[in-house]
């Protein structure tokens, strides 16, 4: 078959209704609003460029080239988000772009902005090269010398000796960011799935790249990958069932079918369309896939192991940006696709919220490793955020947006502090080693205390503003019981945050205790941004609350 024949076969099949007319005219060219997709495109483009840098730039120059490229790309993407918001896409000009695949509205822009800012800060911590002692005269970051080398083997030693560093982390992070940008914007289920995979696969890899404790890091990556694959499978299965139910993967279309305003039955799906069993099972499976990503109980099992094993900068990045993206997708799903199903998903989500808040807080009490502790704390916080999610009011959306923005900077800052406390074996994450840190380095301990107080939701920190916003939204939405459970969980959670503060300030330093490394300007900037955002959002959250309030409406 000649090329022309294939072409005409292809085009005539695409337009079967009108044989005889030159079909080439009949293909509707997809309209892609490049300007509105600019944030995503910039990041993806930079990621591709980053791969080329890996291929062609000499080893010595790669670190600086990658760092420069990543920061510039993320900043440019953020500028694009701001320009779009200034152009009214968040408020007046809500739009569904790229043939129905991407929704450009307030939540999308707000979340994309948050993800990009958090990613810039996270990339700073990725690029930190002052903390680890120099290996054979080469400055190294927290990532493995050569990912493919067997841990502890000859290959690894050679790679360390040669001064190799894994600069691939930067393009990997950029790919993950690109996925995260699309995830909350996805307006059909297939885009949602693709975005999920684009954001997850690089994260699986990043988790495996710790320079110290490599086996633990690889174990974390495998666990994350296996469980992530499970959850992706659930999600995909749910998508298939929902397609069977609605005959479409588009959010708006599914919502219409659920709402009963669409009667026309696709002949190919006559057996399944409108079958409520498919709808309920499909929606439940999709929710499970998303709840896995946000780390809600009972889909949280991966969180502590992965948070502990992954390189700490990656942990911070995941805990902040991934969570923002996943909650964004969850919000859109519940508010745009499934509002008609509210009476079905609300009771289930109530249960999930309660066990997530209480489970995270209670299990965290018994933790002895600071990274695991923060992991369980992130589970408890997922519960608090979910309480706002299920309020099912515009207030609920904006409170969740605000909470996510507040929480992500505290998280990155806290994990950045964790990278500073070190002993001979790398980061000293066991809590007993933090004893007396307040004596040794009052500043670092005080900064960490600020983050812990923000996690605990003490007034005058961003944690309180966020918690107040979601609880208020939940109470307004008629979920007073959740608020009461939420404050009880907060009281339990306060206990373990305070335990760490006690340890740092009121315990005598151990003679063989860890040292606090003096970071470069990069980590200092990350921590500084965290502290400033924490305090500003705590004392004067007005502007940001307004921003989140304006961004509260979804386009359908």
């Amino acid at each position, binding site marked *: 078959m000649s090329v022309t024949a294939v072409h005409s076969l292809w085009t005539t099949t695409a337009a079967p209704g009108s044989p005889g007319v030159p079909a080439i005219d009949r293909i509707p060219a997809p309209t892609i609003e490049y300007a509105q997709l600019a944030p995503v495109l910039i990041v993806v483009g930079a990621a591709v460029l980053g791969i080329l840098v890996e291929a062609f730039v000499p080893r010595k120059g790669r670190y600086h080239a990658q760092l420069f490229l990543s920061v510039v790309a993320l900043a440019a993407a953020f500028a694009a988000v701001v320009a779009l918001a200034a152009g009214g896409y968040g408020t007046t000009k809500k739009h569904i772009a790229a043939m129905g695949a991407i929704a450009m509205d307030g939540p999308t822009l707000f979340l994309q902005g948050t993800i990009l800012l958090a990613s810039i800060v996270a990339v700073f911590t990725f690029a930190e090269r002052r903390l680890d002692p120099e290996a054979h005269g080469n400055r190294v970051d927290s990532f493995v010398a050569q990912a493919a080398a067997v841990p502890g083997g000859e290959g690894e030693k050679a790679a360390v000796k040669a001064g190799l560093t894994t600069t691939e982390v930067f393009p990997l992070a950029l790919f993950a960011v690109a996925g995260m940008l699309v995830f909350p914007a996805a307006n059909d289920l297939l885009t949602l799935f693709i975005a999920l995979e684009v954001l997850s696969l690089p994260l699986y890899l990043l988790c495996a790249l710790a320079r110290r404790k490599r086996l633990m890091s690889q174990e974390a990556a495998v666990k994350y990958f296996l469980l992530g694959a499970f959850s992706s499978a659930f999600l995909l299965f749910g998508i298939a069932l929902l397609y069977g139910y609605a005959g479409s993967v588009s959010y708006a279309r599914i919502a219409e079918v659920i709402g009963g305003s669409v009667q026309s039955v696709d002949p190919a799906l006559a057996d399944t369309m409108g079958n409520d069993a498919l709808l309920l099972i499909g929606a439940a499976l999709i929710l499970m896939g998303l709840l896995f990503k946000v780390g809600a109980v009972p889909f949280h099992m991966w969180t502590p192991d992965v948070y502990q094993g992954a390189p700490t900068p990656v942990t911070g990045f995941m805990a902040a940006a991934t969570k923002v993206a996943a909650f964004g997708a969850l919000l859109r799903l519940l508010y745009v696709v499934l509002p008609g199903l509210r009476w079905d998903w609300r009771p289930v989500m109530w249960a999930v919220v309660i066990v997530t808040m209480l489970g995270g807080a209670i299990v965290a009490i018994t933790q002895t490793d600071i990274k695991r502790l923060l992991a369980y704390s992130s589970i408890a916080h997922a519960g608090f955020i979910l309480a706002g999610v299920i309020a099912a009011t515009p207030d609920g959306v904006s409170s969740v947006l605000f909470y996510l923005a507040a929480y992500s900077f505290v998280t990155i800052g806290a994990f950045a502090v964790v990278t500073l406390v070190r002993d001979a074996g790398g980061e000293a994450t066991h809590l007993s080693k933090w004893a007396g840190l307040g004596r040794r380095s009052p500043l670092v301990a005080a900064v960490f205390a600020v983050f812990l107080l923000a996690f605990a939701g003490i007034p005058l920190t961003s944690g*309180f*503003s966020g918690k107040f*916003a979601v609880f208020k939204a939940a109470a307004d939405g008629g979920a007073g019981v959740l608020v009461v459970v939420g404050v009880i969980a*907060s*009281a339990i959670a306060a206990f373990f945050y305070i335990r760490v503060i006690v340890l740092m300030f009121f315990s005598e330093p151990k003679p063989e205790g860890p040292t606090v490394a003096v970071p470069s300007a990069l980590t200092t900037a990350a921590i500084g941004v965290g502290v400033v955002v924490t305090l500003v959002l705590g004392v004067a959250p*007005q502007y940001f*609350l307004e921003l989140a309030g304006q961004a509260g409406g979804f386009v359908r």
Partner: protein
Amino acid sequence: MSFPLLTATAALPALGAIATAAVPAARRTAAKWLALLFSLGTLALAVVALVRFEPGGARYQLTESHAWIAEFGVRYELGVDGIGVSLLALTALLVPFVILAGWHDADPLEDARPNRRWRPTQGFFALILAVEAMVILSFEATDVFLFYILFEAMLIPMYFLIGGFGDRAAPAQFAAKAAGAGDEAAATQRSYAAVKFLLYNLAGGLIMLAAVIGLYVVAGTFSLTEIAEARANGSLSMATNTERLLFLGFFFAFAVKAPLWPLHTWLPNAMGEATAPVAVLITAVVDKVGTFAMLRFCLQLFPEASKWATPAILVLALISIVYGALLAVGQRDMKRLIAYASISHFGFIIMGIFAMTSQGQSGATLYMINHGISTAALMLVAGFLISRRGSRLIADYGGVQKVAPVLAGTFLIGGLATLSLPGLSPFVSEFLVLVGTFSRYPVIGVIATLGIVLAALYVLVLYQRTMTGPVKAEIRTMPDLRVRELVVVAPLIALLLFLGVYPKPLTQIVDPAVEHTLSDVQKTDPKPEVEAAR
């Protein structure tokens, strides 16, 4: 726009806290003087506020109102009534004495390794000023949200004050216990006390948070004046159960803070382990926020529920009075004794508030102030005593009045004030509270007098065991009060005497505010104010 006086009274100590914290490590003395200056400046502003406050004028005076967080319906609203302004003055008055009394409490130990960045002294005084700023602002806040934020946030500096600074080991000549193991045990106890303090109060505060949110859902605003007005003219009605639940949420937090039996157990630990000035800060300043808030928020926002809960609260207050006094009698540790005595006194205050009579509430307000002054006097002298001997145990003392007569004398006056001897100011308030309670609840009033009898017992036994009798060998060379210590104690004693003989200036300010509060409560349910016929 006029000068924001109320903001200034809180901003000055806040600035002082920042300035003090920023003093370099080597300039410890400068930090102390700076903190003292800022606290004195705050006192001056508080006096100005007191003078500019017109007792017969509007209910809330010196008001300020600015937009703050519109999304939450929160405004930055300040205003004081007679109760608020007098407690503001009390706070501003006590803090300079607290700072002076704690002058050497946070000096670094001599054997401490030099560390350029570890600045405990600066931290100590900065934290005291931070607490002062938040307490003062909480007395001024007329926005429920603003009050809540301060109510919670003040726990953090307080927590570091309790956990970070303990009694100093004795000077060399009195060294009773070996350093090392003993110190570590003390540190463990102290951090236990600090955590207990924080968790109790945080739990109370979080329950209140749920109620604060609930209040907003019901009322749609956080402004105390707006809600009270809407309640008064009937435009805002609450379902009975809603009001009761919200009341309980608020009251729980205040009862933890006050503290009321059975939520009191954190206080003896905290006061026992903290240094004497910090203990004064806890009981005389911070805890007053709890009782003050009952008057201002519980009664105004939830009058019906307050009346509903009155019998139960009176019984709890009665238990506090008797139980606190009984446990005080049994204490072997001076500071814990004073702590239990305070629990007994807080019982009187709460009883006075919920007796819902004008004498009772005036008495309760005066009680807050007098208890602040008298406890400060007693506790600070006890602190001076403890710093000389290095022990809090009563049994370690004896015959002090022969060695240090001035110390013993001031201790006695502080003690007599605590047991409400006529002629000293606490007598006036205790009498008013009892009269106010008796006129409505005679049985409870009668049982409450037990508290006075027991107070005489624990104070006099304490004095007898420590100050009289044969002089113990370890204290033979104990020095008497120093000039700095006299400067702390003398004005407090003078105030106790003055207000005991002539309480009018205070009652003049407090009474109109009490009338307002009572009318809030009674408005919907007119009851004879005093059943005079009885």
